[in-house]
Protein backbone atom coordinates (compact mmCIF):
# COMPACT_ATOMS: atom_id res chain seq x y z
CA UNK A 1 0.00 0.00 0.00
CA UNK A 2 2.86 2.38 0.85
CA UNK A 3 4.36 1.94 -2.63
CA UNK A 4 0.95 2.77 -4.11
CA UNK A 5 0.64 5.91 -1.97
CA UNK A 6 4.15 7.04 -2.98
CA UNK A 7 3.22 6.39 -6.62
CA UNK A 8 0.12 8.56 -6.22
CA UNK A 9 2.21 11.28 -4.56
CA UNK A 10 4.73 11.22 -7.43
CA UNK A 11 1.87 11.49 -9.92
CA UNK A 12 0.69 14.58 -8.00
CA UNK A 13 4.18 16.12 -8.07
CA UNK A 14 4.21 15.68 -11.87
CA UNK A 15 0.74 17.23 -12.10
CA UNK A 16 1.79 20.27 -10.05
CA UNK A 17 4.52 20.84 -12.68
CA UNK A 18 6.25 24.21 -12.49
CA UNK A 19 4.84 25.05 -9.07
CA UNK A 20 6.33 21.83 -7.70
CA UNK A 21 9.65 22.74 -9.32
CA UNK A 22 9.46 26.22 -7.72
CA UNK A 23 8.77 24.63 -4.35
CA UNK A 24 11.76 22.31 -4.73
CA UNK A 25 14.01 25.22 -5.77
CA UNK A 26 12.85 27.33 -2.80
CA UNK A 27 13.46 24.47 -0.39
CA UNK A 28 16.90 24.02 -1.94
CA UNK A 29 17.69 27.74 -1.55
CA UNK A 30 16.49 27.88 2.05
CA UNK A 31 18.50 24.82 3.01
CA UNK A 32 21.60 26.01 1.14
CA UNK A 33 21.37 29.30 3.06
CA UNK A 34 20.79 27.64 6.40
CA UNK A 35 23.33 24.88 5.69
CA UNK A 36 25.97 27.35 4.44
CA UNK A 37 25.74 29.45 7.56
CA UNK A 38 25.69 26.29 9.63
CA UNK A 39 28.99 25.16 8.08
CA UNK A 40 30.58 28.58 8.69
CA UNK A 41 29.28 28.69 12.22
CA UNK A 42 30.48 25.15 12.97
CA UNK A 43 33.97 25.99 11.73
CA UNK A 44 34.05 29.22 13.73
CA UNK A 45 32.84 27.24 16.73
CA UNK A 46 35.77 24.85 16.28
CA UNK A 47 38.16 27.80 16.11
CA UNK A 48 36.64 29.28 19.27
CA UNK A 49 36.90 25.97 21.14
CA UNK A 50 40.46 25.50 19.94
CA UNK A 51 41.51 28.98 20.97
CA UNK A 52 39.78 28.71 24.32
CA UNK A 53 42.02 25.70 24.96
CA UNK A 54 45.07 27.67 23.93
CA UNK A 55 44.43 30.84 25.95
CA UNK A 56 47.38 31.67 28.21
CA UNK A 57 47.92 34.54 30.67
CA UNK A 58 51.47 35.82 31.10
CA UNK A 59 52.36 37.05 34.58
CA UNK A 60 55.61 39.10 34.37
CA UNK A 61 57.64 39.21 37.55
CA UNK A 62 59.49 42.27 38.94
CA UNK A 63 62.64 40.23 39.40
CA UNK A 64 63.72 36.69 38.87
CA UNK A 65 62.97 34.76 42.07
CA UNK A 66 65.61 32.75 43.86
CA UNK A 67 65.31 29.01 43.11
CA UNK A 68 64.37 28.38 46.73
CA UNK A 69 61.41 30.81 46.51
CA UNK A 70 60.09 29.40 43.23
CA UNK A 71 57.95 26.48 44.56
CA UNK A 72 56.21 28.84 47.01
CA UNK A 73 55.48 31.41 44.29
CA UNK A 74 54.14 28.84 41.79
CA UNK A 75 52.12 27.25 44.61
CA UNK A 76 50.48 30.57 45.43
CA UNK A 77 49.62 31.13 41.76
CA UNK A 78 48.14 27.64 41.50
CA UNK A 79 46.06 28.29 44.61
CA UNK A 80 44.31 31.23 42.92
CA UNK A 81 40.79 30.27 41.74
CA UNK A 82 40.40 29.53 37.99
CA UNK A 83 44.10 28.74 37.52
CA UNK A 84 44.35 25.33 35.85
CA UNK A 85 48.15 25.24 35.41
CA UNK A 86 51.17 27.44 35.96
CA UNK A 87 54.62 27.16 34.37
CA UNK A 88 57.59 29.25 35.41
CA UNK A 89 59.59 30.81 32.51
CA UNK A 90 63.00 32.09 33.58
CA UNK A 91 64.76 35.02 31.89
CA UNK A 92 67.04 32.56 30.10
CA UNK A 93 64.06 30.47 28.93
CA UNK A 94 62.40 33.64 27.62
CA UNK A 95 65.53 34.61 25.69
CA UNK A 96 65.80 31.10 24.26
CA UNK A 97 62.17 31.31 23.14
CA UNK A 98 62.91 34.65 21.49
CA UNK A 99 65.85 33.09 19.64
CA UNK A 100 63.56 30.34 18.35
CA UNK A 101 61.03 32.90 17.14
CA UNK A 102 63.71 35.00 15.43
CA UNK A 103 65.10 31.93 13.64
CA UNK A 104 67.89 32.97 11.31
CA UNK A 105 67.94 36.42 12.94
CA UNK A 106 68.65 34.92 16.36
CA UNK A 107 72.02 36.71 16.35
CA UNK A 108 70.19 39.92 17.25
CA UNK A 109 69.42 38.41 20.66
CA UNK A 110 73.05 37.48 21.17
CA UNK A 111 74.19 41.00 20.50
CA UNK A 112 72.22 42.36 23.47
CA UNK A 113 74.48 43.52 26.34
CA UNK A 114 72.12 42.10 28.96
CA UNK A 115 68.99 39.92 28.87
CA UNK A 116 66.11 42.47 28.87
CA UNK A 117 63.35 39.88 29.09
CA UNK A 118 61.59 39.46 32.45
CA UNK A 119 60.99 36.14 34.16
CA UNK A 120 57.32 35.15 34.01
CA UNK A 121 54.72 32.58 34.94
CA UNK A 122 52.58 31.22 32.11
CA UNK A 123 49.11 30.62 33.52
CA UNK A 124 46.54 28.34 31.86
CA UNK A 125 43.07 29.46 32.99
CA UNK A 126 40.38 26.93 33.76
CA UNK A 127 37.14 26.82 31.73
CA UNK A 128 35.49 29.25 34.14
CA UNK A 129 37.95 32.00 33.21
CA UNK A 130 37.47 31.82 29.44
CA UNK A 131 34.70 34.41 29.54
CA UNK A 132 35.64 38.13 29.57
CA UNK A 133 34.32 38.58 33.14
CA UNK A 134 36.07 35.46 34.43
CA UNK A 135 39.31 36.44 32.71
CA UNK A 136 39.20 40.00 34.11
CA UNK A 137 38.68 38.68 37.63
CA UNK A 138 41.58 36.27 37.23
CA UNK A 139 43.88 39.04 35.90
CA UNK A 140 43.03 41.19 38.93
CA UNK A 141 43.78 38.32 41.33
CA UNK A 142 47.11 37.59 39.61
CA UNK A 143 48.12 41.28 39.53
CA UNK A 144 47.59 41.46 43.30
CA UNK A 145 50.58 39.20 43.96
CA UNK A 146 53.48 41.33 45.35
CA UNK A 147 56.06 39.73 42.97
CA UNK A 148 54.04 40.66 39.88
CA UNK A 149 55.02 43.55 37.66
CA UNK A 150 52.47 43.20 34.86
CA UNK A 151 49.82 40.75 33.68
CA UNK A 152 49.08 40.24 30.00
CA UNK A 153 46.54 38.22 28.08
CA UNK A 154 42.82 37.78 27.99
CA UNK A 155 39.97 36.20 26.22
CA UNK A 156 38.19 39.23 24.83
CA UNK A 157 39.02 38.40 21.24
CA UNK A 158 37.97 34.78 21.73
CA UNK A 159 34.71 36.13 23.04
CA UNK A 160 34.51 38.40 19.99
CA UNK A 161 34.92 35.32 17.81
CA UNK A 162 32.13 33.62 19.75
CA UNK A 163 30.02 36.69 19.14
CA UNK A 164 30.63 36.40 15.37
CA UNK A 165 29.78 32.74 15.54
CA UNK A 166 26.47 33.52 17.26
CA UNK A 167 25.77 36.29 14.74
CA UNK A 168 26.40 33.93 11.81
CA UNK A 169 24.14 31.31 13.35
CA UNK A 170 21.38 33.90 13.85
CA UNK A 171 21.71 35.25 10.29
CA UNK A 172 21.71 31.69 8.93
CA UNK A 173 18.65 30.75 10.93
CA UNK A 174 16.86 33.99 10.02
CA UNK A 175 17.57 33.74 6.30
CA UNK A 176 16.87 29.99 6.31
CA UNK A 177 13.59 30.55 8.17
CA UNK A 178 12.46 33.29 5.77
CA UNK A 179 13.21 31.15 2.74
CA UNK A 180 11.69 28.13 4.49
CA UNK A 181 8.47 30.08 4.99
CA UNK A 182 8.38 30.91 1.28
CA UNK A 183 9.10 27.26 0.53
CA UNK A 184 6.25 26.09 2.77
CA UNK A 185 3.83 28.47 1.04
CA UNK A 186 4.97 27.25 -2.37
CA UNK A 187 4.61 23.61 -1.35
CA UNK A 188 1.13 24.48 -0.06
CA UNK A 189 0.29 26.02 -3.45
CA UNK A 190 1.71 23.01 -5.30
CA UNK A 191 -0.30 20.67 -3.09
CA UNK A 192 -3.44 22.75 -3.55
CA UNK A 193 -2.97 22.53 -7.33
CA UNK A 194 -2.50 18.79 -7.01
CA UNK A 195 -5.66 18.69 -4.90
CA UNK A 196 -7.63 20.31 -7.68
CA UNK A 197 -6.13 17.96 -10.24
CA UNK A 198 -6.90 15.13 -7.88
CA UNK A 199 -10.51 15.98 -7.06
CA UNK A 200 -11.89 13.17 -9.26
CA UNK A 201 -9.72 10.64 -7.45
CA UNK A 202 -10.78 12.11 -4.13
CA UNK A 203 -14.44 11.96 -5.09
CA UNK A 204 -14.15 8.32 -6.17
CA UNK A 205 -12.14 7.37 -3.10
CA UNK A 206 -14.84 8.87 -0.88
CA UNK A 207 -17.56 7.15 -2.88
CA UNK A 208 -15.99 3.71 -2.53
CA UNK A 209 -15.22 4.17 1.18
CA UNK A 210 -11.43 4.47 1.03
CA UNK A 211 -9.84 5.07 4.44
CA UNK A 212 -9.14 8.70 5.30
CA UNK A 213 -5.40 8.02 5.52
CA UNK A 214 -5.36 6.72 1.94
CA UNK A 215 -7.07 9.91 0.78
CA UNK A 216 -4.84 12.29 2.70
CA UNK A 217 -1.44 10.58 2.82
CA UNK A 218 -0.52 11.17 -0.84
CA UNK A 219 -0.80 14.91 -0.20
CA UNK A 220 1.52 14.74 2.77
CA UNK A 221 3.88 12.47 0.85
CA UNK A 222 3.78 14.79 -2.14
CA UNK A 223 5.03 17.66 0.04
CA UNK A 224 7.55 15.38 1.67
CA UNK A 225 8.91 14.25 -1.71
CA UNK A 226 9.35 17.87 -2.79
CA UNK A 227 11.11 18.58 0.51
CA UNK A 228 13.37 15.54 0.16
CA UNK A 229 14.31 16.44 -3.41
CA UNK A 230 15.00 20.03 -2.32
CA UNK A 231 17.13 18.86 0.61
CA UNK A 232 19.14 16.41 -1.49
CA UNK A 233 19.74 19.14 -4.08
CA UNK A 234 20.78 21.52 -1.29
CA UNK A 235 23.20 18.94 0.07
CA UNK A 236 24.67 18.51 -3.41
CA UNK A 237 25.02 22.28 -3.88
CA UNK A 238 26.65 22.66 -0.45
CA UNK A 239 29.09 19.82 -1.18
CA UNK A 240 30.01 21.37 -4.52
CA UNK A 241 30.43 24.82 -2.94
CA UNK A 242 32.55 23.34 -0.16
CA UNK A 243 34.72 21.49 -2.64
CA UNK A 244 35.29 24.67 -4.64
CA UNK A 245 35.56 27.21 -1.81
CA UNK A 246 37.29 25.28 0.97
CA UNK A 247 40.76 25.05 -0.67
CA UNK A 248 40.63 28.78 -1.36
CA UNK A 249 39.47 29.71 2.15
CA UNK A 250 41.73 27.37 4.10
CA UNK A 251 44.94 29.50 3.93
CA UNK A 252 42.99 32.52 5.22
CA UNK A 253 41.24 30.47 7.92
CA UNK A 254 44.54 28.95 8.97
CA UNK A 255 46.19 32.37 9.24
CA UNK A 256 43.36 34.12 11.04
CA UNK A 257 41.72 31.41 13.12
CA UNK A 258 44.34 28.70 13.15
CA UNK A 259 42.00 26.27 11.42
CA UNK A 260 44.01 23.99 9.12
CA UNK A 261 40.91 22.96 7.14
CA UNK A 262 37.31 24.06 6.62
CA UNK A 263 35.23 21.02 7.47
CA UNK A 264 31.88 20.06 5.94
CA UNK A 265 28.79 18.96 7.86
CA UNK A 266 29.08 15.78 9.89
CA UNK A 267 26.93 12.82 8.69
CA UNK A 268 24.45 13.59 11.49
CA UNK A 269 24.24 17.19 10.23
CA UNK A 270 23.51 15.98 6.71
CA UNK A 271 20.74 13.75 8.05
CA UNK A 272 19.31 16.74 9.96
CA UNK A 273 19.39 18.85 6.76
CA UNK A 274 17.57 16.19 4.72
CA UNK A 275 15.07 15.61 7.53
CA UNK A 276 14.49 19.37 7.72
CA UNK A 277 13.69 19.43 4.00
CA UNK A 278 11.28 16.52 4.29
CA UNK A 279 9.63 18.17 7.31
CA UNK A 280 9.28 21.51 5.48
CA UNK A 281 7.65 19.80 2.52
CA UNK A 282 5.38 17.64 4.64
CA UNK A 283 4.30 20.72 6.58
CA UNK A 284 3.39 22.48 3.32
CA UNK A 285 1.43 19.42 2.20
CA UNK A 286 -0.28 19.22 5.58
CA UNK A 287 -1.29 22.90 5.40
CA UNK A 288 -3.00 22.30 2.05
CA UNK A 289 -4.64 19.07 3.11
CA UNK A 290 -8.05 20.48 4.02
CA UNK A 291 -8.56 22.69 0.99
CA UNK A 292 -10.01 20.17 -1.40
CA UNK A 293 -10.27 16.97 0.53
CA UNK A 294 -12.99 17.95 2.93
Amino acid at each position, binding site marked *: *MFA*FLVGEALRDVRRAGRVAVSAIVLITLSLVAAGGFWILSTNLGRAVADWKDRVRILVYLRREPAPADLPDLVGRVLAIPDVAAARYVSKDDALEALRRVLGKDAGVADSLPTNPLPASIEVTPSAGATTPEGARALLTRLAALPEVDEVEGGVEWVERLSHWQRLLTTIGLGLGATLALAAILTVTTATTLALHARR*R*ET*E*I*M*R*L*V*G*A*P*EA*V*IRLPLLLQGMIQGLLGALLALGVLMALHRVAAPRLEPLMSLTFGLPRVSFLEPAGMVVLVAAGATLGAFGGWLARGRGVA
Partner: protein
Amino acid sequence: MIELHRVSKSYETGPVKVPALIDVSFRVAKGEYVVITGPSGAGKTTLLRLLYREEVPTEGEIEVLGRSLNGLGRAQVRALRRSIGVVFQDARLLPDRTVYENLAFVLRVTGTPRREITARAFEALRAVGLSARAQAYPSQLSQGEAQRAALARAIARQQPLLIADEPTGSLDEVMASEVLGVIRDIWAAGTTVVLATHQARLAAALRRRTLVLKAGRVVKDEG
Protein backbone atom coordinates in the same frame (compact mmCIF):
# COMPACT_ATOMS: atom_id res chain seq x y z
CA MET B 1 -31.51 -5.35 2.19
CA ILE B 2 -32.93 -1.79 2.09
CA GLU B 3 -35.66 -0.30 4.23
CA LEU B 4 -36.87 3.28 4.34
CA HIS B 5 -39.36 4.28 7.01
CA ARG B 6 -41.15 7.64 6.66
CA VAL B 7 -38.11 9.34 5.21
CA SER B 8 -38.21 13.02 4.36
CA LYS B 9 -35.45 15.23 3.08
CA SER B 10 -35.56 18.98 2.61
CA TYR B 11 -32.93 21.54 1.66
CA GLU B 12 -32.73 24.95 3.24
CA THR B 13 -32.16 27.82 0.86
CA GLY B 14 -32.06 30.82 3.15
CA PRO B 15 -35.25 30.94 5.18
CA VAL B 16 -37.08 28.67 2.71
CA LYS B 17 -37.23 24.90 3.14
CA VAL B 18 -37.43 23.06 -0.16
CA PRO B 19 -38.73 19.51 0.26
CA ALA B 20 -36.97 16.94 -1.95
CA LEU B 21 -38.52 13.79 -0.45
CA ILE B 22 -41.69 13.55 1.62
CA ASP B 23 -42.63 10.63 3.83
CA VAL B 24 -41.06 7.91 1.68
CA SER B 25 -41.31 4.31 2.87
CA PHE B 26 -40.43 1.11 1.01
CA ARG B 27 -38.41 -2.08 1.24
CA VAL B 28 -36.08 -3.76 -1.20
CA ALA B 29 -35.39 -7.42 -0.65
CA LYS B 30 -32.03 -9.07 -1.23
CA GLY B 31 -31.57 -9.93 -4.92
CA GLU B 32 -34.34 -7.59 -6.09
CA TYR B 33 -34.08 -5.27 -9.12
CA VAL B 34 -35.94 -2.06 -8.38
CA VAL B 35 -36.41 0.81 -10.80
CA ILE B 36 -37.10 4.29 -9.48
CA THR B 37 -38.63 6.59 -12.03
CA GLY B 38 -40.25 9.96 -12.23
CA PRO B 39 -39.75 13.30 -13.90
CA SER B 40 -36.64 15.41 -13.36
CA GLY B 41 -36.68 16.98 -9.89
CA ALA B 42 -38.92 14.26 -8.45
CA GLY B 43 -36.26 13.30 -5.88
CA LYS B 44 -34.72 10.18 -7.48
CA THR B 45 -31.10 11.27 -7.10
CA THR B 46 -31.72 12.51 -3.54
CA LEU B 47 -33.22 9.13 -2.68
CA LEU B 48 -30.20 7.27 -4.06
CA ARG B 49 -27.76 9.62 -2.33
CA LEU B 50 -29.50 8.83 0.96
CA LEU B 51 -28.84 5.12 0.36
CA TYR B 52 -25.05 5.49 0.18
CA ARG B 53 -25.08 8.16 2.87
CA GLU B 54 -24.04 11.07 0.68
CA GLU B 55 -27.07 12.81 2.21
CA VAL B 56 -28.67 12.53 5.61
CA PRO B 57 -32.48 12.45 5.91
CA THR B 58 -34.23 15.30 7.64
CA GLU B 59 -36.70 12.81 9.12
CA GLY B 60 -37.25 9.06 9.16
CA GLU B 61 -35.07 6.00 9.28
CA ILE B 62 -33.04 4.20 6.67
CA GLU B 63 -31.54 0.75 6.88
CA VAL B 64 -29.15 -0.53 4.21
CA LEU B 65 -27.46 -3.94 4.21
CA GLY B 66 -28.63 -4.58 7.73
CA ARG B 67 -27.33 -1.35 9.27
CA SER B 68 -29.24 1.69 10.31
CA LEU B 69 -27.83 4.79 8.61
CA ASN B 70 -29.02 7.10 11.37
CA GLY B 71 -26.07 8.36 13.41
CA LEU B 72 -23.35 6.52 11.50
CA GLY B 73 -19.79 7.61 12.25
CA ARG B 74 -17.29 8.36 9.46
CA ALA B 75 -15.64 4.95 9.70
CA GLN B 76 -19.03 3.24 9.51
CA VAL B 77 -19.99 5.33 6.46
CA ARG B 78 -16.76 4.19 4.76
CA ALA B 79 -17.53 0.58 5.65
CA LEU B 80 -21.07 0.97 4.22
CA ARG B 81 -19.74 2.44 0.98
CA ARG B 82 -17.29 -0.40 0.54
CA SER B 83 -20.36 -2.66 0.24
CA ILE B 84 -22.13 -0.56 -2.39
CA GLY B 85 -21.30 -0.01 -6.04
CA VAL B 86 -22.47 3.29 -7.52
CA VAL B 87 -22.68 4.44 -11.15
CA PHE B 88 -23.83 7.78 -12.47
CA GLN B 89 -25.04 9.25 -15.74
CA ASP B 90 -21.45 10.25 -16.55
CA ALA B 91 -18.93 7.47 -16.16
CA ARG B 92 -16.58 9.53 -13.96
CA LEU B 93 -13.54 7.57 -15.05
CA LEU B 94 -10.10 8.98 -14.25
CA PRO B 95 -8.96 10.39 -17.60
CA ASP B 96 -5.22 9.81 -17.18
CA ARG B 97 -5.56 6.12 -16.30
CA THR B 98 -6.45 3.18 -18.48
CA VAL B 99 -9.67 1.23 -17.92
CA TYR B 100 -7.69 -1.42 -16.04
CA GLU B 101 -5.95 1.24 -13.93
CA ASN B 102 -9.30 2.82 -13.08
CA LEU B 103 -10.46 -0.48 -11.66
CA ALA B 104 -7.13 -1.23 -9.98
CA PHE B 105 -7.18 2.22 -8.35
CA VAL B 106 -10.52 1.57 -6.66
CA LEU B 107 -9.46 -1.93 -5.61
CA ARG B 108 -6.22 -0.64 -4.15
CA VAL B 109 -7.68 2.24 -2.17
CA THR B 110 -10.25 -0.08 -0.64
CA GLY B 111 -7.55 -2.44 0.58
CA THR B 112 -7.79 -5.35 -1.89
CA PRO B 113 -4.63 -7.47 -1.59
CA ARG B 114 -2.24 -6.64 -4.43
CA ARG B 115 -2.08 -10.19 -5.79
CA GLU B 116 -5.89 -10.24 -6.22
CA ILE B 117 -6.24 -6.91 -8.03
CA THR B 118 -5.53 -8.04 -11.60
CA ALA B 119 -7.76 -11.10 -11.32
CA ARG B 120 -10.64 -9.13 -9.83
CA ALA B 121 -10.33 -6.29 -12.32
CA PHE B 122 -10.36 -8.65 -15.30
CA GLU B 123 -13.23 -10.64 -13.82
CA ALA B 124 -15.26 -7.41 -13.65
CA LEU B 125 -14.20 -6.37 -17.14
CA ARG B 126 -15.24 -9.76 -18.51
CA ALA B 127 -18.61 -9.38 -16.77
CA VAL B 128 -19.26 -6.16 -18.69
CA GLY B 129 -17.68 -7.43 -21.93
CA LEU B 130 -14.78 -4.99 -21.85
CA SER B 131 -11.68 -7.09 -21.21
CA ALA B 132 -10.36 -6.34 -24.69
CA ARG B 133 -10.39 -2.61 -23.88
CA ALA B 134 -8.52 -2.89 -20.58
CA GLN B 135 -5.56 -0.83 -21.79
CA ALA B 136 -7.65 1.88 -23.44
CA TYR B 137 -7.87 5.36 -21.93
CA PRO B 138 -11.35 6.84 -21.26
CA SER B 139 -10.93 9.26 -24.16
CA GLN B 140 -10.60 6.26 -26.48
CA LEU B 141 -13.90 4.69 -25.35
CA SER B 142 -17.41 5.21 -26.70
CA GLN B 143 -19.93 6.51 -24.18
CA GLY B 144 -21.43 3.05 -23.87
CA GLU B 145 -18.01 1.50 -23.25
CA ALA B 146 -17.18 4.19 -20.70
CA GLN B 147 -20.42 3.44 -18.85
CA ARG B 148 -19.66 -0.29 -18.94
CA ALA B 149 -16.20 0.47 -17.56
CA ALA B 150 -17.86 2.46 -14.75
CA LEU B 151 -20.11 -0.54 -14.07
CA ALA B 152 -17.07 -2.83 -13.99
CA ARG B 153 -15.48 -0.46 -11.47
CA ALA B 154 -18.66 -0.50 -9.38
CA ILE B 155 -18.84 -4.30 -9.22
CA ALA B 156 -15.10 -5.07 -9.06
CA ARG B 157 -15.26 -5.36 -5.29
CA GLN B 158 -18.16 -7.84 -5.60
CA GLN B 159 -20.51 -5.66 -3.59
CA PRO B 160 -23.97 -7.01 -2.81
CA LEU B 161 -25.72 -3.76 -3.82
CA LEU B 162 -25.50 -1.72 -7.04
CA ILE B 163 -26.98 1.78 -7.20
CA ALA B 164 -27.28 3.23 -10.70
CA ASP B 165 -28.32 6.86 -11.10
CA GLU B 166 -29.49 7.48 -14.68
CA PRO B 167 -26.83 5.14 -16.10
CA THR B 168 -28.28 5.44 -19.61
CA GLY B 169 -29.15 9.12 -19.41
CA SER B 170 -26.55 10.24 -21.91
CA LEU B 171 -26.57 7.18 -24.20
CA ASP B 172 -28.33 6.45 -27.47
CA GLU B 173 -30.77 3.53 -27.63
CA VAL B 174 -28.25 0.93 -28.76
CA MET B 175 -25.71 1.83 -26.10
CA ALA B 176 -28.42 2.16 -23.44
CA SER B 177 -29.61 -1.32 -24.27
CA GLU B 178 -26.03 -2.65 -24.00
CA VAL B 179 -25.58 -1.06 -20.57
CA LEU B 180 -28.97 -2.27 -19.33
CA GLY B 181 -28.05 -5.76 -20.53
CA VAL B 182 -24.88 -5.62 -18.44
CA ILE B 183 -26.84 -4.42 -15.39
CA ARG B 184 -29.32 -7.27 -15.90
CA ASP B 185 -26.40 -9.75 -15.96
CA ILE B 186 -24.99 -8.25 -12.78
CA TRP B 187 -28.40 -8.60 -11.11
CA ALA B 188 -28.76 -12.17 -12.42
CA ALA B 189 -25.44 -12.98 -10.77
CA GLY B 190 -27.01 -12.13 -7.39
CA THR B 191 -26.45 -8.41 -6.89
CA THR B 192 -29.34 -6.29 -5.65
CA VAL B 193 -29.92 -3.41 -8.07
CA VAL B 194 -31.58 -0.03 -7.52
CA LEU B 195 -31.71 1.95 -10.77
CA ALA B 196 -33.08 5.44 -11.24
CA THR B 197 -34.21 6.76 -14.61
CA HIS B 198 -36.39 9.62 -15.76
CA GLN B 199 -37.24 7.66 -18.93
CA ALA B 200 -40.67 6.14 -18.21
CA ARG B 201 -40.58 4.02 -21.38
CA LEU B 202 -37.25 2.55 -20.43
CA ALA B 203 -38.53 1.81 -16.91
CA ALA B 204 -41.56 0.04 -18.37
CA ALA B 205 -39.39 -1.93 -20.79
CA LEU B 206 -37.29 -3.28 -17.93
CA ARG B 207 -40.38 -5.03 -16.47
CA ARG B 208 -39.12 -4.88 -12.92
CA ARG B 209 -40.63 -3.57 -9.74
CA THR B 210 -40.98 0.18 -10.29
CA LEU B 211 -41.36 2.98 -7.77
CA VAL B 212 -42.74 6.15 -9.28
CA LEU B 213 -41.71 9.39 -7.57
CA LYS B 214 -43.55 12.65 -8.07
CA ALA B 215 -42.66 15.86 -6.25
CA GLY B 216 -40.77 13.90 -3.61
CA ARG B 217 -43.48 11.32 -2.88
CA VAL B 218 -43.78 7.69 -3.93
CA VAL B 219 -46.99 7.71 -5.91
CA LYS B 220 -46.83 4.19 -7.30
CA ASP B 221 -45.05 0.96 -6.34
CA GLU B 222 -45.80 -1.70 -8.88
CA GLY B 223 -44.43 -4.89 -10.44
